[in-house]
Each structure stands twice: as structure tokens, then as C-alpha cells.
């Protein structure tokens, strides 16, 4: 399968996943009812379509950021959360919930984006101008443990049990009640972030040969670090802002796609974005049709779906080692 065939196939799968997600929900709305009557078309246009669009943005962001992170760190187990951007964005959102600013629909994502921005600034200050991968990763670990601790602090200090349960629920990640505003907020930032990651593609390819050889090929590690910071920061930051923390997508999707594209890091970026979008939209349709009292949070569903995948990976590796 050539690269363009793969992309077309993934696009078709994504289109079908979106169609499915428009039908799926507490009330199944089959295709022929979409335009029949005010209520179904209102549900489709104002509830399910924006939710699907947000799902696509989130999945594509996480898939591409994960692929880029794995290429940058040359580690197939790297995750977009590793640099601490998602936990800084989450801290921003938690602050808005804690102080009750989240009354207006857009304030929470704004706070999350602010958190992601502060995280990016802190990362670049901590890592300095060297372009060193080790320093950058260490800075990310410091940032994510600090923001994680502050988030826990806020939960424990929450004024009412209701506030702390609200924070905990939000942290699990979901696409419930997303509106066109959320999509409009995330779209430009996600676009810029993805452009930065795609721009970094050839440097990621060069890193296949190790840092010294990549530098000898004219790759500037400092520029690459800025591109990664901007790319991962904007995509992951905006996806946390509109959906909370959703794990596994950034880790699992590049893994699944890698063998299909011949492992080249730059060739992995767009297919991972498409496959990430498919996974999130499908998983989000699944949580909506599960018969449960309240909807299962997407972040939880994703973790449950991710476990068998990692088990399969583990058994595979065990067979290879034996």
C-alpha cells in the first residue's frame, strides 16, 4: 500500500466513523431521519456534529503529537504527556474549576490554554538554549510532576466535595456537551501546532541516525526543540483544553500505524493524525451507546481499550525474547 493509498483509506474510515458517531447516542438517529423534522436536525447540527469535530481535533492532535514525540525521543513508548504540557493545561483548567471561574463556557478552555502556554514557557526556560534532548526531557518530567502535585493539592483543598468531584470528573476527559465554540477555539491552534510538527518531519527523519549524524546533516537541534515545543504544546494544549486528559491515543496510534508506513518518522505524522481521529471518534460513539446510568468518561474508556493492546504488545515481545 502506498502512502497516498493509506491516507485515502484512513480518510474514508474517518468519514464512516464520523457518520456513525452522528447516528450514535442515547437516541439512535438513522441517516434518513437527519433532515426529517426540527429535533433530529438540531441534535445532529448543534450537539453531535460539533462533538464529532472536537473528537477529530483531539484525536488528530494526540495522534500526531505522539508520533512526533516518539520520533524526537527515538522511543516507541514516548507519549505526548511526557513533556508536561497536558498536565500544565490540566492545572490551568483545574484552577478555573477551583475558583469557580468555569461558569462561562469558554473560561475553562482559556485557562487550560494559559496553563499550556505557561508550561511551554517554563519548558523552554528550563531546557535552555542547548537543544539537548536529555535536558528537554528532564525539564518535562520536572514540569509534569510539579503540575501534577499542584493539581492534587487543589483537589484536596477544594472548598466543597462537589467542587473536588467536579475537578476529578473533568480530569478524566470527555467530549460531553462540546459546542461549535470549542471547535472554533481549538482549530487554529491545532492547525498551527500540526504545521510545526510537519515542518519538523525531516529533522525527525535525520534523528533516525542519532543526534551527531543528524547535526552533521545540517539539522539544528535548537530549532527542532522549538518546533517540537510549539507543535506538541499547541496540539496537546488545545486538546486538553477542549476535552480534558485522554491517554493512550498518542501512545497507541503511532505504534499501530508505524508498520504500515515503513517506520519513517515523517511519513508517520499524517496517518497517525487520521488514525487518532478515527480512534477517538469511534471510542466516543461507543461510550454514548453503552447502556449505563451516566455516560462513561472517554478518558476511562480509552484506558480500558488501551490495556488489551498493551497486553498484546507484551505477549508479542515475550515471544520474541523467548
Amino acid at each position, binding site marked *: 500500500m502506498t502512502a497516498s493509498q493509506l491516507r485515502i483509506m484512513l480518510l474514508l474510515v474517518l468519514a464512516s466513523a464520523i457518520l456513525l458517531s452522528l447516528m450514535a447516542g442515547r437516541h439512535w438517529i438513522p441517516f434518513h431521519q437527519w433532515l426529517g423534522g426540527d429535533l433530529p436536525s438540531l441534535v445532529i447540527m448543534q450537539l453531535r456534529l460539533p462533538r464529532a469535530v472536537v473528537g477529530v481535533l483531539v484525536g488528530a492532535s494526540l495522534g500526531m503529537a505522539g508520533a512526533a514525540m516518539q520520533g524526537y525521543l527515538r522511543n516507541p513508548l514516548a507519549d505526548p504527556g511526557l513533556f508536561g504540557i497536558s498536565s500544565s493545561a490540566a492545572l490551568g483548567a483545574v484552577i478555573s474549576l477551583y475558583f469557580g471561574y468555569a461558569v462561562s463556557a469558554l473560561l475553562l478552555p482559556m485557562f487550560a490554554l494559559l496553563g499550556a502556554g505557561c508550561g511551554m514557557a517554563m519548558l523552554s526556560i528550563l531546557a535552555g538554549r542547548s537543544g539537548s534532548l536529555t535536558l528537554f526531557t528532564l525539564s518535562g518530567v520536572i514540569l509534569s510532576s510539579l503540575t501534577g502535585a499542584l493539581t492534587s493539592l487543589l483537589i484536596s483543598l477544594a472548598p466543597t466535595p462537589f467542587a473536588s468531584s467536579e475537578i476529578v470528573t473533568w480530569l478524566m476527559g470527555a467530549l460531553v456537551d462540546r459546542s461549535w465554540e470549542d471547535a472554533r477555539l481549538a482549530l487554529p491552534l491545532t492547525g498551527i501546532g500540526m504545521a510545526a510538527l510537519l515542518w519538523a518531519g525531516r529533522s525527525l527523519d535525520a534523528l533516525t541516525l542519532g543526534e*551527531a549524524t543528524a547535526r552533521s546533516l545540517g539539522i539544528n537541534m535548537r530549532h527542532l526543540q522549538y518546533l517540537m515545543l510549539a507543535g506538541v504544546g499547541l496540539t496537546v494544549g488545545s486538546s486538553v483544553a477542549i476535552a480534558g486528559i485522554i491517554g493512550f491515543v498518542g501512545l497507541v496510534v503511532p505504534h499501530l500505524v508505524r508498520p504500515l508506513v515503513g517506520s519513517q518518522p515523517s511519513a508517520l505524522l499524517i496517518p497517525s493524525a487520521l488514525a487518532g481521529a478515527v480512534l477517538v471518534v469511534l471510542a466516543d460513539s461507543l461510550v454514548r451507546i453503552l447502556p449505563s446510568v451516566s455516560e462513561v468518561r472517554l478518558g476511562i474508556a480509552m484506558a480500558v481499550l488501551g490495556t488489551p493492546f498493551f497486553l498484546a504488545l507484551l505477549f508479542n515481545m515475550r515471544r520474541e525474547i523467548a
Partner: protein
Amino acid sequence: MELRIDNLSLKLRGRDVLRDISARFTPGKITVILGPNGAGKSSLLSCLTGLQRQQHGRITLAGASIFDLPAALRARHIGLLAQKADIHWDIDVRALIALGRLPHHGRWGRSAADEAAIDAAMAHTDCTALAGRRAQQLSGGEQARVLLARALAGQPDWLLADEPLANFDPVHQLDVMSCLRAVADGGMGIVLVLHDLTQAARIADQIIILDKGEVAASGSVSEVLTPELLARIFSIRVHVGTAACGMPIITPMARAA
């Protein structure tokens, strides 16, 4: 274009790694850098590639400091074959060799000239039969050949190689030596860091011996690879001989007293 070092010194973490080194490298010739472990050979190579920036002194390419060149342009002139054979992803052999063309082509794909350079590099290094295979599935020697092809595909004016013969069986050592000689005859300047004295004696046009970060000796094979000098710098007694075909043989016999 001549590659030249003038009064190069390098201090890392308070330690003198290189001290006041001057050397001239001639295009179309093979220069071999020898020296005991820790003498500064690899550091010298990374200075020459432009990767090490804390040095004092000048490194010039055709009269201009290599640090004044933009990194991408410098990469077209000076290629590095690193000692550590890193292949982090299981990519297609041809895609890996094509990475050597990164300094040449733009973002939107490779030209016919790029493809021709890749083909030529693969033919030169006996890699054509490996096309279509996955890089991580190859044996160590095959990987080393592919990485050499990667370095040659960039068609640099200068190829700097750190221990390029280390991963090969004897047949391929000979093949790689004759390949390097052929590209040098084609005009490429080559600087090799080697450990094996016999290999150095066979391939070098010029030898530079480093010891404790300084140039201990430099000149032609017969000037430099003498038993006295090797005893002094490497602390070994050697047998210097000549095979029936006229090839030099240098074999360490014992520690020098």
C-alpha cells in the same frame, strides 16, 4: 577545497582535550588520524564536522571558517560517518541511504540528481542487493555498509569517518578500503580515525598521530609509522614488515618496557 586547522584547542569540563593542533588536509587524499585511546581523535573529528563549538583556533574550508557557513550548507561540504552505528527505526534501506541527501534537497522531495547519487552510493558500497530490505533486519556488517552508502550519497567534498572499518569482516574491510580509495581518486578528501596500524599503513596518504591532545607526529606512512615512534606513543614493540605483494604489515608484539 582545502580543509585546514590552525592552532585548534579544545577544553571540556576543565580538561584539555585538544591542544594547539594545526594540520592541513589535501583534497583527493586520505588522511588517517591515529593515537591511543583518549588521545582526542574523535573530538578532533567532531571539531572538523563543526559539531563542537567550544574550541579556540580556526578551522577553515577554502579559506573561510566552517562556523561561518550555515549548518545546511556546511553539511553539503563536510559529511560525517559516526562511530556509533545508530539506526533507530526499522526503515527501508533506500530510505535510510536517502537521508544522506537531506542537505541537498528541499522539503518537497528528491530530484533526479538525488536519486542518481543514491544509486551511485549504493553501487559503490555493494548495497544494491540490500535495496527493499529493512535496516534493522540487516547484519552488523550490512548495516555498516548501508551507513557508509548514506555518507557517500551526500557527495560531500570531505568525508570524515570514525572507525569506518570496525564492523566489517576481512573481505568487506578490503572492499571498503578500495571504495574509499576510489572516491578519494574521484576528488573527495577523506579523514579517517583508525586503530589498526596495518590498515592505516595500507590506506593512508598522510598520517597524523595524536597523543594526549597534541600532534605527536605527522607525515607519510614511512616517516611516521616507525618502531621508535610507535614505542614512544603507543608503548608497544612492533614488527614492521612487508608482505610478498609489497603491502606493509605492522604487528604489535609486546608492551614496550
